[in-house]
Structure formats: C-alpha cells, structure tokens
C-alpha cells in the first residue's frame, strides 16, 4: 500500500493551559476523500491549522506523503502539494476576482518571485484562471473587486483559490457553509470533479454532503478521533450518534 498522503501521529495542541487536541492519530490515504466530522469546538479547524502549518503543534508528528512536515512554515507545506481553504472567508478583497485566482496559480506554475515575467502575458496561467472561474461560476464577476461579492460567492471564490494551487492534497473547511441546498449540491459536484484523482480532506457539518462525498469518515470529539470508517460504519456507530449526530434519525442496516 502506498504511503499515506497524510499521517498524524499522536498530535497534541494546547493553548495556554487548555488542551484542545488531545492526541490525534489519523491516516489519510492517497487519493481518498476523507471527511472529518465532530461537534463544534472539537478541534477540526485547529487540526487543519496544525496540518497546514498555521499553528505549531505542542507535541506529536505530522507527515505529508511520508515527509515530516511538523511545524514547517505554511508556504513550504503548500509547496509540497497541500492546499487548504478557510472556514471564515479568507480572500484578497481589493484585487479582482480574476487576480485572486491567478495569484494562486503563480507559484505552482513556477514563477516564484519573478520580476522578469508580465502576468498579463502568461497565456497558460490566464487561461487556467479563467477556466477555474468558469468552474466556480464567477466568470461574469471576473473583473469585480472580490470585496463586493455576496457572501456565498466569496465562499465559492475561497474554493477557487484553493483548487488553483494545483496541490494534490486539498483540505476544505466547511466549504458549503452558508450556501443554499441548491448551491450545496453544485458545490459538491464541483468538489467531486476537481478532486478527481487527488486526496481530499474535508470538514463538514452537512451530513448530506459528507455521506455523499466521503470514502471514509473520521469523527473528532474533544481533540480525539473516536471513530474512523466508511460512511455506513460511522453512521451506525452508537458513540458517534450520541456524540455528534444527535437525535437526527438514522436508520441502520445492521
């Protein structure tokens, strides 16, 4: 079996005296779609922050495709092929929607800090940027300032920026939050298509989305993974039901 795309090994994190992540062990396989669910404040986003390098871990080890990335700087991790979105919208407000996406393309296309290229001349990059705008249905807004998009459109842009990084491991933190059912289904379709052949790690509270997307699901409660498995296994796990799904009726074939 190939090395895990992501491997968390007894990762701990505490802020001051309050310990938020109490020993995380998680293995995300190459090419799988892995969903994280769990009550509010369980530490899902924190986990994302730890993996993507925004926070330093207090202890433990994180490996990306077998490479140790514990406490590496975010941009370095990103360059190793990991892209993430944020739960609270996090875009470049004063730049146009188009520029938002294009910037996300620059590094992967190898332009680094170049002062020798003119972005407007980079046919391929611009082409791809427009392509992505198509996918997230923002072409019409291409030259608007990102700041004036409506909330849902900003969420879409958030995803757009993330996928533009061309990473093969994509982490999405509640991508469909604030979308209507209708858009949610579209978003799911989008996510499906863009993560084709890639590894996806997604946090969602919308069970519809989760069960629709995920190959495997891990349940995070108070900083620990209490269960991992296929959607059905998880859905039927009594621990999970009382800890998370609550009285949301779920009929189990078992």
């Amino acid at each position: 079996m190939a090395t895990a795309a992501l491997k968390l090994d007894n990762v701990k994190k505490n802020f001051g005296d309050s310990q938020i992540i109490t020993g995380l062990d998680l293995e995300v396989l190459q090419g799988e779609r892995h969903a994280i669910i769990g009550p509010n404040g369980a530490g899902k986003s924190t986990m994302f922050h730890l993996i993507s390098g925004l926070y330093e871990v207090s202890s433990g080890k994180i490996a990306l495709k077998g490479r140790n990335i514990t406490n590496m700087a975010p941009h370095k991790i990103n360059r190793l092929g990991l892209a993430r979105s944020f739960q609270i919208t996090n875009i470049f407000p004063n730049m146009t929607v188009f520029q938002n996406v294009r910037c996300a393309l620059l590094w992967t296309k190898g332009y680094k800090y170049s002062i020798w290229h003119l972005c407007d001349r980079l046919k391929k990059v611009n082409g791809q940027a427009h392509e992505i705008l198509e996918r997230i249905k923002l072409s019409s807004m291409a030259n608007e300032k990102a700041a004036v998009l409506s909330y849902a459109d900003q969420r879409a842009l958030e995803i757009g920026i993330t996928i533009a990084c061309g990473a093969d491991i994509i982490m999405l933190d509640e991508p469909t939050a604030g979308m209507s059912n209708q858009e949610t289904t579209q978003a799911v379709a989008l996510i499906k298509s863009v993560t084709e052949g890639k590894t996806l790690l997604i946090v969602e509270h919308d069970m519809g989305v989760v069960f629709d997307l995920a190959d495997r699901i891990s349940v995070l409660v108070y900083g620990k993974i209490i269960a991992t498995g296929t959607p059905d296994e998880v859905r039927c796990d009594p621990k999970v039901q009382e800890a998370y799904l609550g009285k949301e009726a779920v009929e189990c074939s078992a």
Partner: protein
Amino acid sequence: MIENTTMDSAEIKGGQAVQSGFSGAAIAKWAGIWLGFILISLALPKIFDSRFAMSMFNQMGIAIVFALSFNMLLGQGGLLSFGHAVFYGMGGFGAIHVLCMVNDGELRIYTELLPLAGGIFAAILGFILGFISTRRAAIPFALITMGIGELLLASSLLLPSFFGGEEGIAGDRWTEITILPFKYGQAIEVYYLILIWMFLSVAAMYLLTKTPLGQMANAVRDNHQRAQFIGYDPHKVRTFQFTLAAFFAGIAGGLFAINYEMVTAENLGMLPSTDILMMTVIGGITYFFGPILGAIFITFLQLVVSNITHAWMLYFGLMFILMVMWAPDGLAGLIMRHQPIWRAKRMTKILPSYLVALIPGLVMFAGVIVLVEIMFHISLSIDPESPLSIMGVSFKAQAFMPWALGILLLGVGGYLFKLAARRVNQAWKTVLAEIKQEGV
C-alpha cells in the same frame, strides 16, 4: 458598481484595478501615452528656458522617481513607510562618495552612471533594513521605519567620515568622464540626464506592478495570511518589494546628488520622508500614475507658490487635509472617477455643474487668501506697517476694509459653494444612473 469600486474607501489601502489581457488597442493606447510623455519632456526646456524652469524640471524629475518608488511600498505593498527617505539619502551619499573618489582620481566612473551607484547602494541597505522592518506590517512597520530614519539621522553626527556632519558631503559633477558629450556643468545638461533616468525608472516600476512579484505584493497587502497558503512567504515578498523600492529611491537620491553636488544627513530624515508621503498621497496611491501627478504638482507649488507668498506652507497643509478628506484617492482618483462618464460621452452633462461650482469656489478661495495674507503680513512680515499687495492691489493690512472683504468673500463664497456642490452631486447621480440603465 463601477462608481462604487472607484469611490470605495478601502482603496486608500491601495489596489490597482489592472485589466487583464493586452489588447492591440490597449498597447497602442499605452504607447501613445508614453510617447506623448517623452515628447513633452523633451520639448519642455525649449519652451521654458529660464534657469528657474530648468531647476524646477530637474527637481520634478527627481521627485517623480522618488514618489513612484514610495508608492511601490504604500500603494502596491500596503506598507506605509516613514523612513523611505533613508534610501533616498543613502543613495545620495553612495553616489556622492563615488563622485568624490572620481574627483580625487581614485576611480573612473561615467557621471551618467552615478545614480546607478546610488541605487545599488540603497538596494543593499534596503535589503537589510527591509528584512528587519517587514517582519511587521501596518502601524508597527510605519513606526519601525520612522525609528530607523530618526536613528540614522541622529547617527549622522557621530559618523562624520560618512555623513560629513552638519555640512554634508560635496562633490564636483564636472568630471570630464562622461558617455554623452556633456560636461554637466550647466543645468540643462543635467536635465537630460535626469530625464533619461526618470524614463528608465518609471517604465521599470510600471512593468514591475505587472510581474508575479508585483501581483503578490498586492496579494500580501490585502491578506498576508492567505498568501502563505498559496505558496508565498509574505516576509520575502515584502522584503523584495522593499528592496526594489529602496533601489529606485536610491536612484532618485543619486540624481539629487548630481543636481546639487552635495548631500547632507537631512536628506534621509523624517522631513523628506513625509514630504514624499504627502506628494504621493496627493497624487493618488491607487493608480500607478498618481504619484507622478503628485510629484509634478507639489514641486510646482513648492517652487512657484513659495515665491509668491510666505504663507504657502499653510495653504499646502490646508490643501493636503482637504485632499485626504474629500479625495482619498488623490488627483489620479479624481480624474479616474470620470472615466466611466467619459467613456459614455456624458462629460457634457456634469461640466456645467462644475462651472457653477467653480465660481463660488474661487470666491471662497479668494476670501481665504485675503485673510491669511493679511494675518501673515501683520504678524510675520519684517515691517507690518508697510502696505501689503495681493494680486496687484496693495493696501494697509491694519485697515478694516480688507478684513471685512475677506470675511465677506469667504462667507458668501462658502455658502454658494455648498449649494453648487449639491448640484454637482445631483448631476453625478443622474448621469451614473443613466449610464447604468444603458449598461454602458
């Protein structure tokens, strides 16, 4: 939403609205603008050939480069520096020291290349100081740069061998070692030298805004955290941007050194730093050409107005404040606001309202001038008793009439202006509404 975006206050933080794609038309347009720019500057000394004009143009050229370099930080990088003159000054010192060596025959370098020396020296320094100061942004950055400026200024007295103490370092640009067939004794020759460097720098800085680094500078300005997650190290981006800005500031400093043949520590102090800040802001930081306007406009005022009145600093301060309040994106912003209307060929619809506003505006302004001048004359002139003359009319400052007149002008003008302003607003509203409907 066009209007909304141009007026959007957030833009004071910067943000080029660069349209993507290089259509043939666009290229033609740019080529046209640049060509015109060049031709005009070449023609200038033929039209105005007084020595005064010459030294003014020279200062403008230098200011343009300096202001643009400053806007690389503020406009494009969202980094407000209170110590940008450090690199202007250090560039100057770099150049002047080289010049001195040339004078002493220790070195043979073409006079034309001195600014480059200044630029490189400043860039090296800029990289070091940039690395330190760009670890923070926003206000902390502003304060760090201010601190560094004050620090160097204070240290200038302690390191006379480099800064030359209060007297500064002087050199003689007439070195006979030149590429062009010039001696650079006369101001006009210096003008052409400055011109060349100005165009090189302006072009370079314009193109830089379109490079990946330039774009990422904007991105980091907007949201440095997210920039990390698309593979960029904000600190590096800022450091590079800072270094480049320092480089061009250094070139400006080098030009200064050539123009005045002496550099003193005050070139790198707080004052030049804030001067350039004002120039840039008045010109407008949101558009690339803003600082150019600012540099030309302010230099002009500094030289011309200060010749006419001693109160000009006061007028300057007033103007600056009014600009910050009513035109946060500067002269450039004021102009660009009309772009949509212009495109829609609707200027005719608002110009009348402008004219209506203009007259009371002038009246009000006249009122201000009269009052300020009177007060200045009474409290500050060598001999208050001597008659004061404004625009040819001369009278006794202590008399009652002028006061009354001034106040009257001010009051009436102000009142009418208020009304007129409403009309302008109305005109705008209607026009923009029309444009929206046709979706022009």
